[in-house]
Structure formats: C-alpha cells, structure tokens
C-alpha cells in the first residue's frame, strides 16, 4: 500500500508540475516549476531502486541543463514575452491528438504482465548496487552503444561551435 501511495504522489506531482511548466506566462516561472519537476522525477527513479540515475537526474538536469535554460530565458526580452500567447491557435487539435495517444497508451498498458523480470531483479540490484551493475553493463554488453554516445556528444560540441562562433568570412 505504501509504495503505491508514494508512486501515486510522484505521478500526480509530475503531471501537475508539467502542466504548470507549459501554462505559465512568465518563462522564468516555467523554468522554476521545471526545476521542481526534475526533482520529482529524480525521486521516482530513487523509488525504483535506480539511485545512480536519480543522482544524474539531479546533477545533470536540475543542475546543469536548467541553469542553461535560465541563462537563455534571461537573455530573452521578458516584457515582450509576457505579452505573447503561450499557445498557438491550433492547440485544441494538439489536445485531441494528445488525448488519442493517451487513450491508446492506456489501452496498451493492460497487456503488461507484472511478474516478468529479467536478469537484474531487485535482489541482485540490492546486493550489487545499481551504480556498479550499470557500470559493468555499460562497459561490457553495451560497450558499442556507449561508444556511439560519445560520438554524439562530440557532434554536439562541434555543432555548438559551428553555429555560435564569430568567425565569418566577408
């Protein structure tokens, strides 16, 4: 009962905070609600025995990415931004599609069987700790995807430099 209660709370908080993030008129407020949202998601991970991902969520998302978001928002002209509409006129169409996808997912969820488990059960994770299990997997079974991810990060750096650097031949 207690786990369900916790899960229910986090799920509710995540949805409520997401709605707050996209409906606020002031972008700074949106970003602040998003900070809270990231913490809720981190708690959800923690609750699922994934302490490493929870820590990464806080450090990378709440810590680094959100600060960048704030920088960008503060570069905007807030006065103009406050007057602009938060949604484009076609938002009801989007709502219908979102509702349809929600209904589809809801009907899909019933097919999941809860007793299904892989190699990494809760016991194994508790014994080995999540971080260790994750690290071992990343450097053995998932070495190849891990290496591709490093190239993606390199592309991100190159891309940022290409798109932002001053050098421009006249």
């Amino acid at each position: 009962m207690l786990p369900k209660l916790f899960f229910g709370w986090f799920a509710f908080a995540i949805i409520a905070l997401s709605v707050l993030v996209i409906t606020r008129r002031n972008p700074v407020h949106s970003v602040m609600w998003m900070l809270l949202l990231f913490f809720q998601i981190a708690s959800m991970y923690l609750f699922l025995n994934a302490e490493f991902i929870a820590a990464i969520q806080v450090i990378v998302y709440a810590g680094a990415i959100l600060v960048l978001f704030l920088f960008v928002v503060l570069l905007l002209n807030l006065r103009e931004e406050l007057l602009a509409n938060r949604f484009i006129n076609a938002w009801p169409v989007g709502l219908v599609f979102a509702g349809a996808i929600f209904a589809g997912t809801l009907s899909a969820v019933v097919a999941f069987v809860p007793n299904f488990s892989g190699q990494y059960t809760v016991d194994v994770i508790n014994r080995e700790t999540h971080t260790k299990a994750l690290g071992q997997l990343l450097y053995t079974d998932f070495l190849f995807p891990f290496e591709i991810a490093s190239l993606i990060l390199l592309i991100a750096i190159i891309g940022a430099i290409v798109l932002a650097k001053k050098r421009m031949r006249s």
Partner: protein
Amino acid sequence: MPLVMPDLRPIAPEIVMTCLALFILVADVFIRRKETLALLSVLGVAVTAFAFALPGVLNTTFGGMFISDGYSMFFKIIFALNVILTVLISVKYLDVEKVNFGEYYALILFATLGMMIMASAGDLIVLYLGLELMALSTYVLAGFIRYDMKSNEAALKYFLLGSFASAFLLYGISLAYGLTGTTDLGRIAMTIEQQGLAGKPALTMSMILIAVAFSFKIAAVPFHMWAPDAYEGAPTSITAFMSVGPKAAGFAVIGRVFLMAFPMVRAEWVTIFIPIAILTMAVGNIVALSQTNIKRMLAYSSIAHAGYALLGIITGTPDGLASMMNYMLIYAFMNMGAFAVIIMLRSEGFKGDTISDYEGLSKTHPLAAALMLVFMFSLTGIPPTAGFMGKFYIFMAAINAGYTWLVIIAVIFSAISAYFYLRIVMYMYMKDPKETVTLTTSPSMGLALAITTVAVLAIGMFPAKVVYLARVAFP
C-alpha cells in the same frame, strides 16, 4: 563479468569512417585551403568503401547489436556514394555561400557514420543512437549558413520536429522493451512468437509509434511538415544530402525493424503503412504542382518518391525489399544530379532557385539544360532512364505480392508527377531566356554530374546488374 574482446572486423568500415571524420576535424586546423579537405574526404570515403570488401566484414558482432550483412552493405554503398557526390557538389558552392568551413566535411562524414550504424543496427538502442548521430549532424548542417534566416529556420524546424520524432521512437522502443524484455530485434521476434504477443494492443501501439518516428525520417505524409521548409532553407548541397542519405537510412531501418522484429504481425504493420504510402504519394505529387521554388518542388517530389519506395516495404517479400533498395540507389543518382544542376545556377548575388530562372536555359547553357532534362525524365520515370527501371521493379514486386490496386494508384500519381517535372523541361526548352544566368562550374561539379548522368543512363539501359546486386544482398 569480464569483457570478451568483440570481433572488430564487421565494424571495420565504421571505424575507418570515424577515424576519417576525426582526422578531417583536426586537419581543418592546419589546412588553409578547404578544398584540400574535400579531396581528403572523398579519398577517405573511397578507402572506407574498400573496407566494405575486407575479409570477415560480413558478420554479426557485439552480441548481435551490430549486423553487417548484404542488406546493410548495399545501403552503405548508397551512403558512400551520397557523401562523395555531396562533397563534390559542395566545394564551389560553399565558397559562393561564404561558409567554406572545414567542419562541414567532418559533420557530413559523421552523419554518414550515423547512417551506416543505422543500417547495421541489430538492437533498438544502437539504432536509436545511430539515428541521433545522423540527425544531430544534419540539423547543424541545415543551419550552416548562419547569416541566412531561412537556413536558421530550416535547422530549427528540422531539429524540433526531429526531436519530436525521436521521442515517438523512444516511446515505441520502451513499449516493445516492456513487452518483450529485450531490445534485440531477433529476440523481440522470438519473444513475440513464444509468448503469443501478436495482436496485443501494446504491441500494436509500439509498432505505430515506431512507424510514426521512421515516417518522420523518410518524410512520409502526414509526418512530412518539416521537409519543404527544411529543404528550402538548408544549403542546397545539404538539401541534396538530406533528401538521399537520411531517407535511405530511414528505409534501411524500416526494412530491418519491421521484417526482423515484427514479422509475426505483418498484417498489422502493413495496414499502418498502406494509408501512409497512399497519402505520401498523393500529397507529395499534388502539392508539388503548385510550387514556384525548385528546392521546395524537389522536397515534395522527394516526399512522393518515399511513397513509391514504401510499396517495396509493404510487399514484405525479398523481391519487394530488393526493389526498394534498388530504388534508393537510383534515387540517389538522379536526385543528386538534379541538385547539382540547381547548385550550378547559384552564383554570387543570384539565388537561382525559382522555377522561372530555368526559362530558356537551353538557349544559354545547352549542356546544363540537357543534363537537367535527363534528371527530370528520370525523376518522372520515363525510359530509358534509371527512374523508369526503379519504378518498374517496385511496381512489379508489388503486383507479384498481390497489391495491384496499390500499383494502379501509384501509377496514377506518377502520371500527375510528369506535369511538374516536365514543366521545368518545358521552361528550359520552349521559353525564351529573360535574364542571363551565369553558371558556377568547377571540375568537381563536372565530375559529380558525369557520374550521376552516366549512372542514370547506364542503370536505365542495363538495369540487370544493379537489380542482381540488390537481390543477392537481400538474403
């Protein structure tokens, strides 16, 4: 859990490509003349292509995550051709646009690497990462002309809708993982069969989401909204690159995922793809009629061609798959050729991308007009060009698989397409020139045009060789 050294021979082409891209990136610092980088890139890709034929390349490695087989090899040849032709047509163009930076070549190579990984992915995680590697590089390339608002807009639209598609893909992958407990394509198929998952709504949902994501990548209707703006705003050489490479990569993964992971539920995904294919052919061909910008027109044409190629997937037979691969190769040649002519028209202070710029081109530049005529005939599908053969084999495979009604629809739309392709020919040959158009030519451009023209005509007249290659490639 000790690390067993995986067999690295199957990923030799990818390793060579990575080294090449990193080398170009570093060499950019030391080499002033960026044309040298272009030359090095082309030579490097040729070396990579040589690695395709190394002994032991055709194998599976990293525990089934990477599959190097005839199917992926055929697509890798398309990607290699695509990158070589793109580099050849870019050299002078980048100078004209004043964005002659070395990172351009490195990014193109990284994008190609992403496509190669996609074509070989045997695991949904690898597939996703390859797709992101390709997509991120292409987003940056689309916005490469920084001072141009349209290029910025193209990059941003492509990026936002591309990320949206990635989210769909991840959602679909997570549903498939939740159901089967694995991301390995072969094992997903096995679990579906063993546990009788076919027909469960969660599996259908997962397939729909994955199909939506891939449809974004191949710009199939109704997920094509980004394509016209992205194609119009991006640097023309990148438009050529985007309309061939990522599209072929998208088809490679559609074929791989749906035929390898979901063969049990073929009836279901065929019902997803048939309406998509019909809509794609309809919207692509009909909206193209009213375009005045040639890059935009070719964007819609590229949407329409995705519709024809989807027929090959829908058949689900080795024959259909082979004709789809064949089509992608032919499309690479004819589309690259058409874009090469468009790039030639771009000169200092003259955009040359509206259709009226082609008025009377045959009088001022007969050779360029003749080449454009060949490519337009090929895109329409008029014999003896390769475009005809491509369509012919796709339609034949679809008829053999029992989709005659679908082929009739495709032929009708194909006939409509003649109007907007041949309008360009009509403008070139039957109108008088309004203003003098100066062509921007270079030896590399000439080489690219020679390769594409010869290929389009040769495949059109002697298609057996290519068809044979595609057929043996598909097991």
